[in-house]
């Protein structure tokens, strides 16, 4: 595996970085969708996450990344073994699993292990990508090109947090909770509304248009390509700082207070925009809290809410195909009206 471009070295794209950090602090925010221009480092940022995030503890040898601290959520194998003896824990990097193009269903959900079946006549389950992504991230580049039957499958698992396998005479279920991250270019086609709705945050990325930023992007990229290891080392300190920020934010998250005024404002914002259902408000609140935790604040304030309003809501607006203004302008208007100038 090649050294990934360090997350901390990504120039600009603040909203994208913010959304990814918020989702790593609180996975219940529900995933991040990154849509935008070509060549803006969408996939670079996601793939950089693996190297940034603090490692996590798993049951040693577990193929489903079971958390040794949470026996209630064990996979069938760990549950069986836990009865026999104490399970050993092991520290591993947080999985950031790529769902590559051309992926087949058997590799997503897992399937009968053909090798074992053919050579030993044993009926064994070979876990798929959903198992590998448990407690981590599942990344779909070109998410709008994903086959519909795979989209359905992911929607189901993302909603239930559990992968139910019924195929080839196998019947089992295992936990599969992950942060879904999708990226794509809107010019290649739009996303199905159901899939859109599953993402907690949605980010628009654009090519930077000021010269200084562009020069910095080109220079850093060039330096990285010529010597990835050295480049990554130069950013080690910055990466470490960001990592400890995530760690302490996670620890603090549960204690961050969310005052009534903030909740009221969130509700008013959703009303103003005509966002359906409670999901908008819930995401808004969770993301603002994650943001506050990252800032080291004790309580969420209106500034946090304002910063996260666009990513939390822009994909939830009811589409009016004849409205030329677009969702961006509508959100800006609503934010202006609710928060004041």
């Amino acid at each position, binding site marked *: *595996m*090649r050294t990934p471009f360090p997350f901390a070295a990504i120039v600009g794209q603040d909203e994208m970085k913010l959304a990814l950090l918020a989702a790593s602090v609180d996975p219940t925010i529900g995933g991040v969708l990154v849509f935008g*221009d*070509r*060549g*803006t480092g969408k*996939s670079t940022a996601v793939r950089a996450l693996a190297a940034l995030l603090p490692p996590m503890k798993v049951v040693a040898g577990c193929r489903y990344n079971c958390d040794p601290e949470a026996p209630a959520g064990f996979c069938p194998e760990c549950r069986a073994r836990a009865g026999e003896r104490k399970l050993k824990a092991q520290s591993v990097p947080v999985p950031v699993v*790529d*769902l*590559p*193009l*051309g*992926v*087949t*269903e*058997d*590799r*997503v959900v897992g*399937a*009968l*292990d*053909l*090798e074992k*079946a*053919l*050579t*030993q*006549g044993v*009926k064994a389950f*070979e876990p*798929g*990508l959903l198992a590998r992504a448990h407690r981590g991230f599942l990344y779909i*580049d*070109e998410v*709008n*090109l994903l*086959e*519909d039957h795979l989209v359905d499958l992911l929607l189901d698992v993302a909603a239930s947090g559990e992968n139910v396998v019924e195929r*080839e*005479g196998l019947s089992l279920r295992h936990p599969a909770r992950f942060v879904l991250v999708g990226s794509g*270019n*809107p*010019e*290649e*086609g*739009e996303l199905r509304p159901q899939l859109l709705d599953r993402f907690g945050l949605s980010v628009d990325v654009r*090519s*930077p*248009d000021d*010269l200084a930023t*562009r*020069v910095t992007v*080109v*220079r850093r*990229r*060039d330096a990285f*390509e*010529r010597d990835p290891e050295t480049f990554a080392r130069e950013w080690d300190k910055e990466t470490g700082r960001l990592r400890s920020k995530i760690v302490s934010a996670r620890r603090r998250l549960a204690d961050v207070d969310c005052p009534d005024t903030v909740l009221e404002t969130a509700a008013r914002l959703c009303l103003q925009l005509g966002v359906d259902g409670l999901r908008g408000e819930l995401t808004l609140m969770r993301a603002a809290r994650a943001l506050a935790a990252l800032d080291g604040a004790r309580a969420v304030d209106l500034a946090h809410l304002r910063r996260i309003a666009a990513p939390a809501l822009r994909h939830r607006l009811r589409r009016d*195909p*004849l409205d030329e203004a677009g969702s961006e302008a509508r959100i800006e208007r609503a934010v202006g009206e609710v928060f004041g100038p």
Partner: protein
Amino acid sequence: MSDALLAAALLAVDPAGTGGAAVRGPWGPARDDWLAALTALLPEGTPLRRLPPGVTDDRLLGGLDLAATLRARRPVVERGLLAEADGGIVLVPMAERLSPASVARLTATLDTGSVVVERDGIAARHPARLAVVAFDEGIGEDERLAPPLVDRLAFAIDLAAGEADDPGAGLAWSRDGVAAARDSLAEVTADEAVATALCETATALGIASIRAPLLALRVARAHAALRGATRIDEGDAAVAARLVLAPRATRLPAEEPPREDAPPQETASPPQADDSTNDSNDSMDDSGDDSTNESGDSMPGEPPPLADLVLAAARAAIPPHLLASLRASSVAASRPSPAAGRAGAPKRGTGRGRAVGTRAGRPDGRARLNVLETLRAAAPWQGLRGATDPRTGRLEIRADDFRLTRVKQRTASTTIFVVDASGSAALSRLAEAKGAVELLLADCYVRRDEVALIAFRGTAAEVVVPPTRSLVRAKRCLAGLPGGGATPLAAAIDLAGAMARAVVRKGQSANVVFLTDGKANMTRAGRPGSAEAEREAGAAARLFRAGGSTALVVDTSPRPRPQSEQLAREMGARYLPLPYAGSHELSSAIQASTRQS
């Protein structure tokens, strides 16, 4: 030495870094010569793989080697074409017809330098640092390489542009020279000024993608390495701007006031630019020692800033037709890129039979047997079925084990509205027709179909809205549609037929909806006269039928005439007489009718 060959040499120096080239031009000797020149410069044994049209994922990405798997009785992995091309080049003929799915697989490989396989029970990652040479044989404006691919290929070479090289002429570079350059690539340094100049130039030319200056920097580095230098100088940057940035220009840079010390014909001088490359070629042959002297010599007095030089080089190489197309687009389109709609167009057209899982059943000639899933189904039972020794015993497969590939046939469709805006129709029905089309547009939006609009009046038919999914744009064009004049029906049928064929070529299905009273009175040649015009319309209708598109003729005349029905029959179209119908009736009738078809 032409830029096409210079690009080939630079591509050979750094295939994975430059990403490759988009080569425009028909199949023929010019292309073969270019490819031969490229191959002659690549190190011996460099893998070249040709991407067959309609390549399947198991060949492209890799999968299970079935024959070997059955023989060995354990899964044997077969590398795909992309992994096989690691360190080399993937050639894509007819690249303008690549499906978005294939484009995405190529771009993912270019971005990560590897292929990730999660298919058929196999999880693998193969290195695939390669370049893509995409041969663009597109003829019209409709047939273009997919923008995501173009964005990642450093070079855009137009072999049709006539800049033919004497095939006998030797190359200025040798295979050894290229190999030496490749080895020294990592040592070539770039000043901050170079990156700044390339970024400034890209901005001045209206290039939004940040990949462009990045690719230009790599090309400049390859050029410096090729002439044996260890530092990128102005000449290298200028070459990169000319080869990489100029073809991507979306606008002309603002003219600078001429500098005193600048060469007199700074604005338009491809020969001058060529001279500079020849200079650097020469210096390269002289092992490059004097290259710094040379650039010093050629610039008496204060040298102009690097950015200006680079910009001048790019400006000189901007293709001549850009001006014309820029002028046209600035008048016509307020959208950022008129090609944007088209770029996304074939997205769902990939559906022509993509595999979407499997089901149990017997192979019957139509359904394809999925051998892997069949094996999976059979494997657990082998013990029970009494296959004696697992090493020698043969697999016993029974009828219940058969698994068939489920294929989804859904294709995207484009509805082409052909609206009669002539005087006779306009008087009574144009407003209703517009209203009906508008309502249908909303329906198409829901189903994510594309729409196109052709209007005919006076002496000709014209495309008012090319196939698009942008409802706003279609609506705007429709609202501004004027009415009046004669009825050039034959021309309209011809145009609609041509557009429908273009849509079908993209792998989508086309529905053509004519809204007309069927009274042709203008010939193709623009001569008024009912009899001849109707005869021509009849001929055009039969020609249209031969094209095989589904069509619907909505007769909007107050009193339906047998001639209109006759026309529909000749077109192979359904006929729908709608005297005195409002927009809503029209649209629901059309909807019902297209659903049936």
